């Protein structure tokens, strides 16, 4: 059979039901195979849209996303989604076309060194050199993408090799001697962690995206409630612990709640689970959690003690480790009363410093209120996908996510333009759920072409543009730290998003009145097909509270 037909067989064997891509010269053979392979192909308008859609699909379903592009510019357009998937540990397999082998290295038409360009931003990559390698490479790619700490894998296939006839035999086992993730967690270390937790007076559980990736949300709740452990999550971990739970402190970090950041600051023991002590969490590293000892549970040994030295390191899958930790912890019969003083303190912080903003005196929509209204209109049940900026932080603060994979955003790389295509992928992966995008007027324009895809492929995402006419987060920093010198942040009133949506064949709406906002959002969601709502909000609103750059958690402002 043709090598490209073998590719289709491999994709089916991996359980792939949809791919996102755009054809070109170097992957024409692959697209010929798609013609009657029986795998859904979503034709995107830009390869970056396809890459982010595959990420959104992977984040919403937990399955491996697949994105395709041709050689040269097709592949270079995938660079941002690949880097994004690497930073946020998203399992995606990227299959790129490459020029014919005899043209490699000759600056052939649409040739780019895809392997070389993507080398620092992949979990692994394959450059196919013989057609017989193709099936095994695809299975190895899926295995690497989904296991251990998930991540992006690139397969670069020269056009002539994909046209070859090969004898296809299904590949049933994958063995990679250099790739053996540690998943179980060391029992002795786990016991030590349980002992430390049982004697801690001011413990905090600090959970990250690893909890979502390992499917450990239920185990996290069970463990946290085995005692009265306060829980905070990173931006990537939101939904890993219910945002409505009494033991929930809110998100931590630069725009986290005071309760969460103060608790970290005064904790005597911090149990990090699938989190990586990013600079947006720690603030000034030297003053981060000065009284705490650290338990660090992570599947990636390179994360342990990377930024903050761990006293009890545990390398393993969060779900496996939490199950074992729970058993060990229950056996200790710790006295929950010892946490009484700690909770008194936390409850006081929560009561004294709730998230707050000053509402408008007139009908103007405050950006924070848009998120509250969305929360109300969707009963807190929608999958919410955001772009990157102020609107992302407000969504993280005011939409109380209660289940994993409900919150999809670009955290590590901070990719503007992520939202719409990722939502498209999420909706394809979870067709029965309401999928809403909160975008900024800056971000949305970076991949707005995917509206055409949504309309043509009948992917009914609901887009709410938090429109303040600014690159809002940059404007906020210029206001606070650069003496109000607003340099190149005013986006004006362009384009007319309502007309633009209509031009794409979507429904375009404009909301300007807070009085009817909840109802307006409900109606937008009830409108069939793709909907874009241009929501006009206060122009110069700042995201608070905030740990100023270089400051410590206890010095939060706003």
């Amino acid at each position: 059979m043709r090598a490209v037909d073998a590719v289709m067989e491999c994709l089916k064997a991996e359980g792939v039901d949809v791919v996102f891509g755009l054809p070109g010269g170097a992957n024409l053979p692959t697209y010929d195979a798609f013609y009657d392979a029986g795998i859904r192909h979503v034709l995107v308008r830009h390869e970056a849209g396809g890459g982010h859609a595959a990420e959104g699909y992977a984040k919403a379903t937990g399955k491996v996303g697949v994105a395709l592009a041709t050689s040269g510019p097709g592949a270079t357009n995938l660079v941002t989604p690949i880097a994004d998937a690497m930073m946020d540990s998203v399992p995606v397999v990227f299959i790129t076309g490459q020029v014919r082998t005899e043209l490699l290295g000759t600056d052939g038409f649409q040739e780019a060194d895809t392997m070389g360009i993507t080398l620092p931003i992949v979990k692994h990559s394959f450059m196919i050199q013989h057609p017989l390698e193709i099936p095994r490479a695809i299975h190895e790619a899926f295995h690497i993408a989904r296991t251990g700490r998930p991540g992006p894998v690139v397969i670069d296939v020269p056009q002539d090799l994909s046209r070859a006839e090969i004898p296809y035999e299904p590949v049933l086992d994958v063995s990679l001697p250099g790739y053996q993730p540690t998943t179980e967690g060391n029992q002795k270390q786990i016991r030590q962690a349980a002992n430390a937790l049982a004697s801690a007076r001011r413990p905090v559980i600090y959970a990250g995206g690893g909890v979502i990736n390992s499917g450990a949300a239920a185990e996290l709740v069970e463990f946290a409630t085995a005692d009265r452990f306060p829980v905070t999550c990173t931006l990537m971990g939101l939904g890993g612990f219910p945002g409505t739970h009494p033991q929930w402190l809110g998100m931590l970090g630069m725009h986290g709640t005071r309760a969460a950041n103060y608790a970290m600051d005064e904790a005597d023991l911090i149990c990090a689970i699938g989190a990586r002590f990013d600079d947006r969490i720690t603030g000034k590293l030297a003053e981060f959690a000065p009284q705490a000892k650290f338990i660090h549970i992570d599947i990636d040994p390179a994360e342990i003690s990377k930024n903050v030295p761990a006293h009890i390191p545990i390398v393993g899958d969060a779900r496996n480790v939490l199950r074992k930790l729970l058993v060990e912890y229950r056996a200790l019969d710790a006295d929950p009363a010892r946490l009484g003083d700690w909770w008194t303190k936390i409850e006081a912080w929560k009561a004294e410093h709730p998230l707050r903003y000053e509402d408008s005196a007139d009908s103007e929509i405050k950006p924070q209120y848009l998120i509250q209204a969305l929360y109300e209109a969707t009963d807190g049940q929608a999958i919410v996908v955001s772009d990157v900026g102020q609107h992302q932080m407000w969504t993280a603060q005011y939409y109380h996510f209660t289940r994993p994979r409900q919150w999809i955003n670009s955290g590590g790389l901070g990719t503007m333009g992520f939202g719409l295509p990722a939502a498209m992928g999420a909706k394809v992966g979870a067709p029965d759920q309401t999928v809403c995008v909160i975008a900024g007027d800056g971000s949305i324009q970076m991949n707005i072409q995917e509206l055409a895809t949504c309309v043509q492929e009948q992917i009914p995402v609901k887009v709410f543009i938090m429109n303040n006419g600014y690159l809002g987060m940059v404007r906020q920093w210029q206001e606070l730290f650069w003496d109000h010198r607003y340099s190149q942040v005013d986006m004006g009133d362009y384009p007319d998003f309502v007309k633009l949506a209509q031009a794409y064949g979507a429904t375009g709406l404009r909301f300007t009145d807070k009085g009817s906002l909840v109802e307006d959002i409900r109606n937008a969601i009830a409108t069939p097909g793709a909907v874009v709502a241009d929501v006009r909000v206060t122009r110069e609103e700042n995201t608070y509270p905030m740990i100023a750059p270089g400051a410590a958690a206890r010095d939060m402002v706003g």
Partner: protein
Amino acid sequence: MGEPGTKTPLSLEELDAAVGLRTGRKHVLSILVENRPGVLTRIAGLFARRGFNIETLTVGPTDNEQFSRITLTVDGALHPIDQVTKQLHKLVNVLKIRDLEPAGTVTRELALFKVSAEAQARSEILEYTEIFRGRVVDTTKRSLTIEVTGSAEKIEAFERLVRVHGLIEMMRTGEIAMSRGRAET
């Protein structure tokens, strides 16, 4: 200190002070890898991305044709290497890494010296070659090409001795290293 994202300017001293922990010693990393294209680039990239300078690098086959051995030396006084070794472990084609302790390790390097050797200097150079257990591998009326193997220190000592006679050129392979004792490196 000037903070990221703010107006406060950064001084050069602050930039210097901001780098991570350094061990202060030379590290010999012995890395067993799958013999596949691109492996060396992946490894070198982890150093390059951090601006680290690799001092020596050797790559060669092992007793098993599926695997190659990379021996790489890097100065822990100049660069914080802890993160880099952890990241090396994560590469799918890397099987094993050892950060070898000098005391428990046999290291060897081969060097070729082309030395200007006029009649009056010839016997002295040959004497040094004898003392260092080197070998003359090529000669002309006015030059000698000498092969020396040993530790980096021995090669450097030989270089100092012959340099005064006019060192035309020198090439070194970089160190290979094997742990002492019965166990595999």
